[in-house]
């Protein structure tokens, strides 16, 4: 078995992508990309389409390269900057924001790999603006982590994978897709290029929101893996999950909802200023002068600022945590901070995106304005994992002193029992 890649995939020339001078330049690029994406995503006809164009804008902007080190073509961006980029893109389009979120989530695993040819190849692609997807969850099992996709060695000793994943966010538009399968010797993880024979990316994400997150199915039909693609070869126990193993994903999920909340807020204000009729009982000239509307916009702004503030705090804490080498005595505080950000971003985004129609009036419900996309996106996105369980952990910490967990707690418990 070869330990180095045998395919020409690894010999392709990387494309050009911008390299930023600093984090401020990356954030400016995110704002530019968001403005372009927002112009497309405001069109109701785009809603059910694959966001090829938005994806290309992301690719050209370079904002998905920032986590790479300067030597690799990135800027070694802080958590605060990556979270801010996800938030900014999500203000334009929550689905496209989730493409950034899942990419950065999966990139962490690549960055922690040893320096081998696969890592170099994938990182070259990412430096060129390409993205990672993911294919982990399945449907039909007892729960989210009940995996049926399986792999077995063929006569040549290669892993052959069969099965189906769903909620495979970003994969339809990604260059590389990390996934996993069970084997007789436990679970393996693998990374597969989108053009690999036996890999089928389905355009079947038919949900009422977050359409642009392309979170549909990925199928493996006798997908043959080379050993260089398999990151956890069969034998031995799976690695013990970290207690903060999902914090990175979680904080970027919060960034998506914070962004959607901001997008809804700005759309509401724009509509009130440009399209709303003044209500018949309000003795004012323009809708924006009505005290009841002004006060309600104040409620939205406070909810939004609280969400953004918690997100910023959690990101700064996360950077401090990383700088100290992820010490376990900071686990509690980091998990609580990120859970609080998720709760308040969920709340703000759902409040503003739904309640705004009570101010904007009946005409704003016309499809041509496409204003329900904010609610649809945040409502679908926030079902990712239940907020009530984030709150449960926060409450159990304050009430009973129980160390807070993420939703991987069940997996960690199973690991401890095994």
């Amino acid at each position, binding site marked *: 078995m070869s330990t180095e890649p045998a395919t020409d995939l690894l010999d392709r020339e990387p494309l050009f992508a911008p390299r930023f001078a600093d984090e401020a330049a990356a954030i400016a690029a995110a704002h530019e990309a968001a403005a372009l994406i927002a112009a497309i995503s405001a069109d109701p006809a785009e809603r059910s389409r694959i966001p090829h164009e938005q994806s290309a804008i992301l690719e050209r902007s370079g904002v998905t390269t920032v986590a790479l080190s300067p030597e690799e073509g990135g800027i070694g961006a802080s958590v605060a900057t990556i979270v801010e980029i996800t938030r900014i893109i999500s203000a334009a389009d929550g689905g496209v924001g989730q493409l950034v979120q899942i990419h950065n989530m999966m990139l962490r695993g690549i960055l922690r790999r040893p320096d081998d040819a696969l890592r170099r190849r994938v990182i070259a692609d990412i430096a060129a603006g390409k993205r990672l997807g993911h294919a982990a969850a399945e449907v039909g099992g007892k729960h989210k982590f009940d995996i049926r996709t399986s792999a077995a060695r063929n006569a040549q000793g290669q892993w052959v994978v069969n099965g189906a994943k769903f909620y495979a966010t970003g994969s339809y538009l990604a260059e590389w897709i990390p996934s996993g399968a069970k084997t007789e010797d436990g679970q393996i993880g693998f990374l597969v290029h989108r053009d690999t024979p036996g890999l089928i990316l389905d355009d079947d994400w038919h*949900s009422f929101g977050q359409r642009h997150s392309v979170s549909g199915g990925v199928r493996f039909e006798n997908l043959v893996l080379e050993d260089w693609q398999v990151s956890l070869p069969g034998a031995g126990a799976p690695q013990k999950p970290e207690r903060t193993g999902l914090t990175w994903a979680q904080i970027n999920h919060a960034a998506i909802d914070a962004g959607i909340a901001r997008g809804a807020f700005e759309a509401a204000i724009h509509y009130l200023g440009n399209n709303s009729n003044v209500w018949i009982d309000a003795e004012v000239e323009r809708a924006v002068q009505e005290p009841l509307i002004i006060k309600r916009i104040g409620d939205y702004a406070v909810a939004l600022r609280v969400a953004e503030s918690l997100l910023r705090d959690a990101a700064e804490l996360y950077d401090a945590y990383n700088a100290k080498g992820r010490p376990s005595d900071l686990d509690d505080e980091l998990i609580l901070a990120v859970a609080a950000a998720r709760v308040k971003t969920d709340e703000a985004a759902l409040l503003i995106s739904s309640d705004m129609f009570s101010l904007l009036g009946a005409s704003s419900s016309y499809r041509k304005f496409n204003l329900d996309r904010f609610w649809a996106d945040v409502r679908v996105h926030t079902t990712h994992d239940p907020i009530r369980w984030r709150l449960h952990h926060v409450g159990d910490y304050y009430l009973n002193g129980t160390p807070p967990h993420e939703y991987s707690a069940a997996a960690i418990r199973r690991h401890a029992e095994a």
Partner: protein
Amino acid sequence: MITKPTRLASEAEAIAAAHAAAAKIALLARDASLNDRVPHEAAEILSASGVTSIYVPREFGGLGASIETVVETVRIISTADGGVGQILQIHNVMIRGVFSRPDDAFRARLVADIFAGKRFGNALAEGKGKGKGGGTRLTLDEQGIWRLNGRKTFATGCYLAEWISISATSDHGPVGVLLHRDAPGLTLEDDWHAFGQQHSVSGSVHFDNVEVDPRFAPKTQTAGGAPDFMPRTGLTWPQILHAAIDTGIARGALEAATAYIRDNMRAWPESGLARAADEQHTIKRIGEYAVAVRAAESALRYAARTFDRFKADPGNRALEDELILATATARAQSDEASIFIGSDLFALTGANSTLDRWNLQRFWADARVHTTHDPIRWRIYHIGNYYLNGVPPDEYGRAARLRQQEIAIATNAATKENAL
């Protein structure tokens, strides 16, 4: 073709008929492929059930159902489909005028049509905001024929209605006109493209030189008397039925959520449970939904009973205040419950429940679109102004209507002076 409607003999029969119709309509409403289609079949079920004629008074040979029963039928239909519920709502609002019409063959035909299951729609609002008036105008042509021209929007129910009730302006002030759907020059558009309440068919209606029967001519000095003044509770009837729609949607959302959690959901891994429905957090949240629905239903029932009492005692000013306050309360609570449950349920039912095939977003979409009819903040404002400052509560647009009436009176006076 409308099946010959059932003639309902009692209020209990009316409620039972509404439940039976709702069960059939619910089967259509859950089919996502029907969301954007005109609800021909649901409308036919509605009419065939007989519930569209229960408000016809006894002296016209009808059931003369109480407000409480009519409100309840709208609520029940709306648990199945808020849009179809609004077709019933607007019908009940618009047929009210039939029974105060002069006793003639025309009125007899309208009443017969109602018994035959035909429905009424409305064409009141115009493009540039409610109450602002505008395009739709009734004028006399050179031959002395009254002609209607203009365009209406938010014309709920019209696309599927037999009779269209229209407001228009004229040289003699505001007028009300009733037109048959087949009137030459009248065009009903299938252009209601909102993200919810698609089945309320609230699109536009055009009038291109439509000939109008002289019985709808403006009231001038020759026709005698001043224009009709809308009473203080002139909008209570549509308002309470609007509350019934949202109360129904809230109940529909609650039932859809509990059914999904029981039958289609995997337990969340952190709960360590086998059944999603056994999770305490979920159980408690469903309790909050149920309390919100029950509060809305209770407020609606109280308002309906107050309305029945007020009808028997229309001069009672304190009861009139109480009716407006009770109806505003029902609207506020039903708005809150329907939007809360319609949106929050996904926090319990999870990612799979967002797939299009479940069509569960329709409750939020319907409630969200329907509750934009008139701003709840102004209903609550009137309640607050009553409790804080003792100001008698109003419904919407009263100040504007008073201004309009002053103009109409002044115009009439000027016309009379000119005639003298």
